[in-house]
């Protein structure tokens, strides 16, 4: 077992013992004080464990097969889901799911990468690596939402856009590029949550949004740590160093102003408790949804533009 997971479980066991002791402590103020102190210690240790999940460990957690995927969130956060298939041009891409849904009883569009859990499903979903028709389906659905004034939720979880022969023939680059440009001017709120892997252009093509959130154990990167390692060090096994160097973790990206907020996960990671993970996502989405839907189209587009315009100003003009 992963040492971090083991430590989390041990902490949980200790917490349960404390709870039992609390029940027995009755009116003993001294015992209560000591127990309170133990609580603080546990919280401190928990923070320590979280802080020491390094970039590579986060990458592994982000890729965990038992993590909640888009349809897991759809099931828990939305009602009346009706999937919309196809790009009306070439085909339907199972690596991206789109659909009408209701959020807090109101009509919304949900779009997200979808991975599979067992081998058959993983292959069917192409490991969450979309082809051009996936991005074109997503844009078609965004335009549909725009036409009828429905906010858009996107969920990002992809190693990257699929680097295949057919993908190149059908214009992978054009499909992604078009999404970037069109998302910048879609006249309804777009709220993005990076739930697992935020793999480069394939992730960004669903993330030119009013708000971009990252879950605690997700990553967002211009290239995979393995890819970076094999190019820069000519050695894919340097992936842990590359992961660190690329600064792909939520705290790094928050600090650089790339994302808006980090959504915490249940102890040990979202894969251990889908319901709690979804509830934590919902807390942030609900707040944002209320805030954004009252904005005028003008204000929405102005602030979306300036968000990306001001982002990542890492240059000097001296």
């Amino acid at each position, binding site marked *: 077992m992963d040492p971090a997971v083991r430590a989390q479980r041990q902490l949980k066991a200790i917490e349960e013992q404390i709870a039992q002791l609390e029940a027995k402590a009755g009116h003993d103020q001294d015992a209560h004080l000591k127990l309170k102190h133990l609580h603080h210690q546990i919280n401190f240790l928990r923070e320590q464990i979280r802080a020491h999940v390094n970039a590579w460990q986060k990458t592994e957690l982000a890729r965990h097969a038992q993590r909640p995927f888009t349809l897991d969130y759809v099931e828990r956060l939305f009602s009346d889901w009706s999937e919309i298939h196809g790009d009306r041009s070439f085909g339907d891409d199972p690596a991206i799911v789109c659909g009408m849904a209701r959020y807090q009883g109101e009509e919304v569009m949900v779009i997200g990468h979808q991975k599979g859990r067992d081998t058959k499903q993983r292959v069917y979903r192409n490991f969450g690596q979309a082809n051009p028709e996936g991005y074109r389906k997503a844009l078609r659905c965004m335009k549909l939402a725009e036409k009828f004034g429905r906010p858009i939720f996107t969920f990002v979880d992809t190693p990257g*856009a*699929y*680097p*295949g*022969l057919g*993908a*190149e*023939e*059908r*214009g*992978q*680059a*054009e499909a*992604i*590029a*078009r999404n*970037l*440009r*069109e998302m*910048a*001017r879609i006249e309804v709120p777009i709220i993005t949550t990076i739930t697992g892997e935020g793999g*480069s*252009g394939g992730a*960004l*093509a669903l*993330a*030119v949004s009013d708000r971009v959130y990252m879950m605690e154990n997700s990553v*967002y*990167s*211009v*290239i995979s740590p393995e*890819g*970076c390692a094999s*190019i*820069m*060090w000519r050695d894919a096994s340097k992936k842990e160093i*590359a992961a660190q*160097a*690329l*600064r*792909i973790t939520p705290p790094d*990206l928050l600090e*650089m102003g*790339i994302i808006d907020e980090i959504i915490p996960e249940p102890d040990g990671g979202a894969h251990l408790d889908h319901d709690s993970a979804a509830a934590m996502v919902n807390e942030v989405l609900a707040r944002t949804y209320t805030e954004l839907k009252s904005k005028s189209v003008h204000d929405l587009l102005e602030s*979306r*533009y300036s968000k*990306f*315009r001001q*982002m*990542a*100003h*890492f*240059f*000097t*003009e*001296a």
Partner: protein
Amino acid sequence: MAWFKRESTEIQSSDEKRVRTEGLWVKCEGCRQIIWKKELEENLNVCPKCDYHFRIDAFTRLSLLLDDAAFSVEDEKLSSTDPLNFFDTRTYKARLQKSQNDTGLKDAVVNAEGKINGRPVIVSAMEYSFIGGSMGAVVGEKITRAIERAAAQRKPIIVVSASGGARMMEGVVSLMQMAKISAALARLDNARVPYISLLTDPTTGGVTASYAMLGDLNIAEPGALIAFAGPRVIEQTIRQKLPEGFQRSAFLLEHGMLDAVVHRRDSKNYIARALDFMAPRAA
């Protein structure tokens, strides 16, 4: 703002320098024949025997496209602050320094203003010899500024791409440049100001997957490699050899991804003709 009038090529790519030290003769990558260097240069760095288009640097490109080879240069002081403090086998700072010394540029794009057949235009020309023409915060900012200027002054903009894609050493910062530039292009599009994208060898990755594919017209030079994923990555993924000519401009034309493949000698005329078409109609 600095004015340039081309007398000799002031800034040469490191590739060209290497070629020069080898003397007066160059071997063509296309036909493997030996060509007289002077003849090659007089022919716009296109092989006189097989039409192979040699890579040219940003200043040579600007001289070729703009009237009288005259143009002003904008935003030339912008340089990267190394957001990740990145190092691999060397530090990114050292790589930047070396590229700056080799090219005389601060980063991988030159913003210029000049005229095409008398019409004022804005051009951003990428410099491949600067860390593979990769796009980080400086390239992103400069191209965005050029687009915003084009929109504000209602001047057509031409972006000449030559890039390996996003600059890995700037991590997600480089990824975000794709969003920033594309958002600026949405506004330019709303304003109906012409944008011509000229893709040259090579244009790949995040540059192709953002502004290079978003022109009102996307035109390319013959033989240019134009891709989202590079050939090596695809070969590793699908575990088979790629067909001959895959991801070259003729291939993209055939698959409907380019509006035209234009010989270097015709690129200015093609663009000028397109700008006539896109000019505001007389009332």
